[in-house]
């Protein structure tokens, strides 16, 4: 039975469809536009949609982190890099010859199709009994108990990456 369009559930479905549209629109802008700056904006739109999907998947914390990290940090850093590195747009549009660019669209489509088919045809296990509600409290508990080692490792990775990126940017400056 389909819920009415104007009931909260129906409205939620409409919003869900809008989010899917946002995600796919963002992804297509990110990959198809000729200007890099627009692709970054498309990426931000796509991440906004993905964050909304996470919200529908009952994990608002991850959705917010998605926005905070991807839009607030990654996209802005990329825009910054584009402004610093100043890519030549005309040069980019000139290079549509190599084999990989022609093969790209069929290959991407094929992979997407294949994965979707797998998803539809796959016999997934029956949903297991939940051992907790997946709330932020549970998230924090398991982050600091079961996954504390990974948590520490990822902070080390982040630290190393910060130092490494600083060092890399610095070396380039010295050479010039």
């Amino acid at each position, binding site marked *: 039975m389909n819920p009415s369009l104007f009931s909260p559930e129906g409205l939620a479905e409409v919003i869900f469809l809008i989010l899917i549209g946002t995600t796919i629109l963002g992804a297509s802008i990110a990959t198809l536009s000729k200007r890099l700056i627009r692709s970054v904006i498309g990426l931000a739109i796509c*991440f906004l949609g993905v964050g909304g999907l996470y919200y529908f998947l009952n994990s608002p914390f991850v959705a917010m*982190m998605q926005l905070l990290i991807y839009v607030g940090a990654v996209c802005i850093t990329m825009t910054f890099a584009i402004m610093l590195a100043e890519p030549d747009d005309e040069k980019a549009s000139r*290079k549509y010859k190599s084999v990989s660019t022609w093969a790209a669209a069929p290959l991407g489509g094929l992979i997407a199709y294949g994965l979707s088919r797998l998803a539809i045809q796959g016999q997934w296990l029956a949903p297991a*009994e939940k051992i907790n509600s997946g709330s932020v409290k549970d998230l924090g508990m398991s982050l600091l108990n079961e996954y504390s080692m990974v948590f520490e490792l990822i902070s080390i990775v982040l630290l190393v*990456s910060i130092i*490494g990126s600083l060092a890399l940017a610095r070396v380039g400056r010295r050479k010039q």
Partner: protein
Amino acid sequence: MLTISAHLNTYLIIGAILFGFGIFGLLHRPSLIGMLISVELILSGASVNFMAFNHFLAPDPTVGQIFTLFIMGIAAAEAAIALSIVIAVYRNYQSIDADDLTDLKG
């Protein structure tokens, strides 16, 4: 039709589409930053899959969330490193096209 938000397959297909877009962009983009954008798309496609399985199938619904958070952390670190590489490359080659970086002398 209207209750597609409660199906695992919807999310898996969205994840697959994002992944496909990522592969497509990775091959089709000439510049390093464009490739980085595509890699982010691939990662987010994987994240969507993790979250979907986590919500619908996993007994412990924190695992997928934690995995996605780690992916985000890794993606942020990767973006920082890659962009500093891009800037260093641009300083040396005056270009960020992957095809132009053919010089083997460091």
